């Protein structure tokens, strides 16, 4: 149990690879951001964010700060709440690091019952620790790609809060906002259903532009589908994992049979034990490759398509607000009541709406970019998935055939 609570560090020398889901991010030396190190403590993860930049916004060409997950969420929210960026697809915030399930499993193993042999225990522990490490690596990658997308975006990279995030070497003390954030999240969910009503067209409001209208209908369905496929892919991956885990007690039982059996069967059982041990590793790799190339890909595009939906929502919201403001103004003028405030409000909504219209071109570019990123990410990952599945199947097949040759020769 002690071991689990020790801070888990990134294996030295291993840089987290750029996440392949966001497509090819341009290698831009003027602003390079990466997470060079990460430490997992009991209930939080500390990321070391390193920046190399030749941009004038920073005081030094090389920066290093330590950030936690909440800081990333704060940064994301400042973007999504900023009217300036209404026409931009804000890169989705990375998911909260979640070691709960993995930690629980390790704990259960530690306290566990004695039905496991020492061999089984060691193997299961190895599996679970590997799982823990994999989750850790993934969360680092997700946080990193979020920053890298911001750095790559021509507009967002210039944001002041982004620079503060990258440079300010004190605590950003956004944790105090946790409660507010929670409440904010709560309200956000209530508001969300209103959003959904707008965006699903229930309110009767339609986009003025054909392109955006088409995107709206497309994204609605796409997001729902990709979310479902993501869920199902996750289940497949978990089943593969269970299978790999099942091979452990089988290999162990075969091994002890091998040592105890009559002479004529010893070799068969020992060979089988060896086989299952290696099949377990292969099956485990199938599971983790499906996780990385399929589950994670789908998860990412679930979030990204939500971000794209948010963009369209903001447009519709602005349009709705503008129309309502106009109606309110007319009403106020008719009743000659609170005309001034109605006028101010209408002005604001008009401005926001106009801004959106001018950023329509930006939004168009964003959505087109979203599509091309998606296509190339799917292509890359599906090809890699197929290649890896082939590799593992060939390895399994070879292993099995070799074992068969030996066993058939023994008859």
């Amino acid at each position, binding site marked *: 149990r002690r071991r689990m609570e020790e801070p888990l560090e990134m294996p030295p020398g291993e840089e987290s690879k750029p996440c392949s889901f966001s497509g090819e991010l341009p290698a831009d030396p003027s602003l390079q951001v990466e997470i060079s190190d990460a430490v997992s403590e009991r209930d939080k993860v500390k990321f070391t964010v390193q920046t190399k930049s030749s941009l004038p916004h920073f005081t030094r060409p090389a920066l290093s700060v330590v950030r936690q997950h909440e800081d990333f969420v704060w940064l994301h929210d400042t973007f999504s709440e900023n009217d300036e960026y209404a026409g931009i697809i804000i890169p989705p915030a990375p998911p909260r690091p979640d070691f709960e399930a993995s930690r629980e499993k390790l704990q259960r193993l530690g306290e566990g019952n004695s039905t496991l042999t020492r061999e089984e225990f060691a193997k299961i522990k190895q599996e679970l620790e590997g799982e823990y490490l994999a989750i850790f690596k993934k969360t680092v990658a997700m946080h990193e790609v979020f920053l890298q997308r911001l750095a790559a975006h021509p507009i967002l990279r210039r944001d002041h809060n982004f620079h503060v995030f990258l440079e300010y070497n004190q605590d950003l003390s956004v944790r105090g906002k946790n409660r507010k954030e929670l409440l904010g999240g709560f309200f956000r969910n209530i508001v969300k259903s209103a959003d959904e009503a707008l965006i699903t067209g229930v309110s009767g409001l339609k986009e003025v532009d054909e392109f955006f209208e088409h995107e709206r209908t*497309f994204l609605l*369905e*796409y997001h729902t*589908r*990709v979310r*479902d*496929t993501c*869920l*199902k*892919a996750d*289940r*497949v991956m*978990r*089943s*593969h994992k*269970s*299978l790999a885990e*099942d*091979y452990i*007690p*089988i290999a162990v*039982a*075969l091994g*002890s*049979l091998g040592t*105890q*059996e*009559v002479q*004529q*069967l010893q070799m*068969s059982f020992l060979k*089988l034990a060896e*086989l299952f041990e290696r*099949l377990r590793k292969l099956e485990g790799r199938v599971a983790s490759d499906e996780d990385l190339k399929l589950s994670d890909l789908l998860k990412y595009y679930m979030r990204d398509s939500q971000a794209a939906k948010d963009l369209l929502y903001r447009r519709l919201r602005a349009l709705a607000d503008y129309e309502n403001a106009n109606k309110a103004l007319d009403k106020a003028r008719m009743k000659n009541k609170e005309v001034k405030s109605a006028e101010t409000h209408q002005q604001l909504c008009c401005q926001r709406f106009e801004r959106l219209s001018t950023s329509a071109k930006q939004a168009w570019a964003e959505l087109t970019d979203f*599509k091309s990123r*998606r*296509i190339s990410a*799917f*292509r890359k990952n*599906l*090809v890699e*998935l*197929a*290649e890896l*599945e*082939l590799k593992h*199947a*060939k390895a*399994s*097949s070879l292993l*099995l*055939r070799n*074992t*068969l040759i030996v*066993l*058939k020769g*023994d*008859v």
Partner: protein
Amino acid sequence: QSSPSSPEPASLPAEDISTSSNGPKPAEIILDDDREDLFAEATEEVSLDSPERDPILSSDPSPAITPVTPTTLVTPRMESKSVTAPVIFDRSREEIEEEANGDLFDIEINVSDPEKVGDGMNAYMAYRVTTKTSLSMFHQNEFSVKRRFSDFLGLHSKLATKYLHVGYIVPPAPEKSIVGMTKVKVGKEDSSSTEFVEKRRAALERYLQRTVKHPILLQDPDLRQFLESSEVFKIFFFNPAARAGILRMVNKAADAVNKMTIKMNESDAWFEEKQQQFENLDQQLRKLHASVEALVCHRKELSANTAAFAKSAAMLGNSEDHTALSRALSQLAEVEEKIDQLHQEQAFADFYVFSELLGDYIRLIAAVKGVLDHRMKCWQKWQDAQVTLQKKREAEAKLQLANKPDKLQQAKDEIKEWETKVQQGERDFEQISKTIRKEVSRFEKERVKDFKTVIIKYLESLVQTQQQLIKYWEAFLPEAKAIA
């Protein structure tokens, strides 16, 4: 497809069956072997509780088989029987062994075509038992009959009664399952009841195949009648109470032995070694069996999840507006659907090839342990006879001194009686020991062969799955690359 025919009553018809209605065939069998109505006594008189009472076996040569009506079977017969090993063993053991090396294995049994007969709780499944053989003991080279599950249990009961207590390892019959069978009776035509029926069919087939592989059991007339007689299997009237008694005798020999706390002076280390060996093997196999059952379960889950994913991926492909990506996703969905099929087939192999073998052997080893325990009981009986003989001798000596001539004669007679019993006890013990040695050796040979065959078959199923996976992914790869 189960077609309910006119329901055959679960119990036998109460009609009077005369010898002639059995047809010439059974009669012909009788001429070869004269053990036909061993069954009749055995089912009734099996002692249910007291371990001291030996399993009743009539060795009196009996006349042509008297077909019995249910009523006759139910009333217990009160004649006392003396217990000796069935004559068949003395008669032609050498002949049997010779034949064992000949064309003994030229017999193939198939169990097929499960058919539901009747409705509701009285319904049952009838299975077709087909035999293909060139052995001369059978009347034809190929023949088939219809049997129901309880008939198989009845067959096993008879064989167990006759052969277990003299040291033969009688293969155990498949287990009953109230839950499984109820679902079938109630008419649930879902996949779980089809699976249950298939599982049972396969188990019955394996059971018969193992039984006919046994050189002694193959000679048994009851077995032959089971395979050949085209009559509704009236002979094997299945008396659940008697069956329960037999099972108790068969399975709980160990308990009885423990209760008697036999401290057997094991002069023969071989038996002690074997006892230990089978105990260990039993434990190991149980562990392995449990793990394989978990594997089967998870593979079925994987199959279901793969199918769900395939459907979802197809829908995602439909909603994707980029043509090439849309097509690739649809192809992915198709691949996953095919992979689901693979998983199902593999789970099938996991279960029927690997898991069921382990289950069978766990039960077979129980039979081996039972036979070893019978030997202990036999030894105990011999020892008890010696003790009694000693007592009788002491009693006689006392009477000699007391000078009571009439009682003395009785005492001398009793001594003679018990001397015979002691001799018989020693002979029986030596016989059962000898038989068990041979049986265990035969059993182990079979077991080694069985395991090796099954392991290879199972690995071949795994190879097959991987080869298919390679095919599917190789076909998909260009589709993924074509996304532009």
